């Protein structure tokens, strides 16, 4: 069945429809992920997005159904070069899998031309449709993407992830399950709360540390969460991941800016400033922190992206706050970033041991 990928600027890419046959619209994001397609599609970061995979052929060995990052959220559509309907081990093919999820897809698209177009003109809205007349293009232009992406993916009800170790409160801004997997691996007794949970609510859980998760959308849409961070950061060790990092930056008078070339890649090099160590980690973000404001703030830059020099991690000079903009939980991608969770646990430990009886929080 012939279908069309139509961009906001009127560019049309013809292709063949697969998966669900519904009409879909969303923010078009170009991803360089080669593997872990299952994780990209079910990542709550992908809420409201149509993901175009630049690898010419994906999902050839079938789908691993254990690789999911959320149960209820997923992307709005997928754009691929080609896939296969046969699989190596008899698992279900990519096309059948996204059909069960109700996601529309379009294949036989020239993904390299598409990727080039997006890198020249920036990220834009797009639609997968059956026609490509002017009416369709006008519709996309007029479409306003909803600003409440985090509200849609965040858990409504607090729930526990019980273990016997440190007590973590995870503020769900679009949490990937792999963050919880990493916390479980480290025996952290976690409670996951709504993105708007009040400081009193979080304090009543008596956490050892608070984690602000990754998530979709524009951080300036979340003024309440930013105000909550201002209160909580004076009382608890905090780890910010992805969107969480951007919110912490905004809560501390730093400014954020959109990246010229958004980072959507499962394996992009990041340098640890202190030691010069290079880690390959998963990135999924379109914003970065404006370096001009960092030097005036109480933060130091701890990680930078090797490709474009953008800030990928920061740490407060005297409060126990650390952040990374990349996704240390991987999924998909290499596992070099796992150490961030160990570092946060060390940070909690050193806050407890060395400051018992000393007023660290002023």
């Amino acid at each position, binding site marked *: 069945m012939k279908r069309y990928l139509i961009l906001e600027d009127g560019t049309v890419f013809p292709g063949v429809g697969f998966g669900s046959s519904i009409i879909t619209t969303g923010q078009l994001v170009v991803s360089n992920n080669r593997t872990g397609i299952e994780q990209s599609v079910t990542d709550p970061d992908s809420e409201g997005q149509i993901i175009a995979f630049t690898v010419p052929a994906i999902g050839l060995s079938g789908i691993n159904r254990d690789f999911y990052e959320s149960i209820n959220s997923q992307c709005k559509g997928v754009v691929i070069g080609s896939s296969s309907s046969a699989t190596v081990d008899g698992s279900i093919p990519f096309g059948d899998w996204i059909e069960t999820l109700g996601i529309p897809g379009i294949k036989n698209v020239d993904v390299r031309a598409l990727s080039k177009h997006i890198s020249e003109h920036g990220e834009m809205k797009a639609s997968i449709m059956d026609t490509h007349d002017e009416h369709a293009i006008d519709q996309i232009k007029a479409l306003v993407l909803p600003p409440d992406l985090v509200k849609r993916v965040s858990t409504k009800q607090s729930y526990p992830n019980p273990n016997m170790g440190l007590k973590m409160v995870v503020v769900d801004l679009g949490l990937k399950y792999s963050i919880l997997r990493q916390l479980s691996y480290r025996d952290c007794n976690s409670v996951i709360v709504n993105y708007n949970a009040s400081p009193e609510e979080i304090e009543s859980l008596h956490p050892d540390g608070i984690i602000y998760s990754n998530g979709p959308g524009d951080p300036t849409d979340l003024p309440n969460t930013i105000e909550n961070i201002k209160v909580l950061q004076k009382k608890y060790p905090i780890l910010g991941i992805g969107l969480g990092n951007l919110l912490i930056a905004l809560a501390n008078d730093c400014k954020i800016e959109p990246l010229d070339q958004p980072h959507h890649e499962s394996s992009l090099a990041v340098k640890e400033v202190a030691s010069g160590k290079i880690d390959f980690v998963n990135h999924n973000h379109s914003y970065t922190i404006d370096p001009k404001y960092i030097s005036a703030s109480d933060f130091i830059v701890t990680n930078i992206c090797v490709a474009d020099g953008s800030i990928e991690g920061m740490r407060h000079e*005297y409060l126990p706050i650390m952040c990374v903009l990349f996704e240390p939980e991987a999924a998909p991608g290499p596992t070099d970033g796992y150490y961030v969770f160990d570092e946060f646990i060390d940070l909690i430990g050193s806050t407890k041991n060395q400051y018992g009886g000393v007023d660290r929080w002023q």
Partner: protein
Amino acid sequence: MAKEIIDGQTMTRALTRITYEIIERNKGIDDLVLVGIKTRGVFVAHRIESRLKQLENISIPVAELDITPYRDDMTHEEIENINIPPLDIDIDKKHIILTDDVLYTGRTIRAAMDALMKFGRPKKISLAVLVDRGHRELPIRADFVGKNIPTSQKEKIRVSMKEIDGEDKIEIE
């Protein structure tokens, strides 16, 4: 038989964490001086210095302290008359961070502090070590610890560092 308990990557991470902790606990690192106890303590000091420079863009002076003349088998009188080479930097009113690889009985640290007091009047002395293996014989504790490794007194801790041993690792035997 020697068993590797810390590999190069973990050692790198421990040194980075110590650096972050030094920044966190000192508002402004302008009056810091790193003093490394020979031999491997000096390398620890240099590695912390290079990290501070990368992060804060400030060069902290690093000095080497040789306390081998202080041996346990010396008489009190001999210790009084020890001459150890003076430091090449001014430590008056400075915050000294003393660095060593292993903290064990605490006698080395005491000797180092004695020597430092001979050279000047520091504002404060802190201690950073890669490994704290316990069994102190003096009331000394480290402010910054890379890794606490509980040991028996029969065991040996061997720290290898790239600068002198070709690779980074810590072994127990």
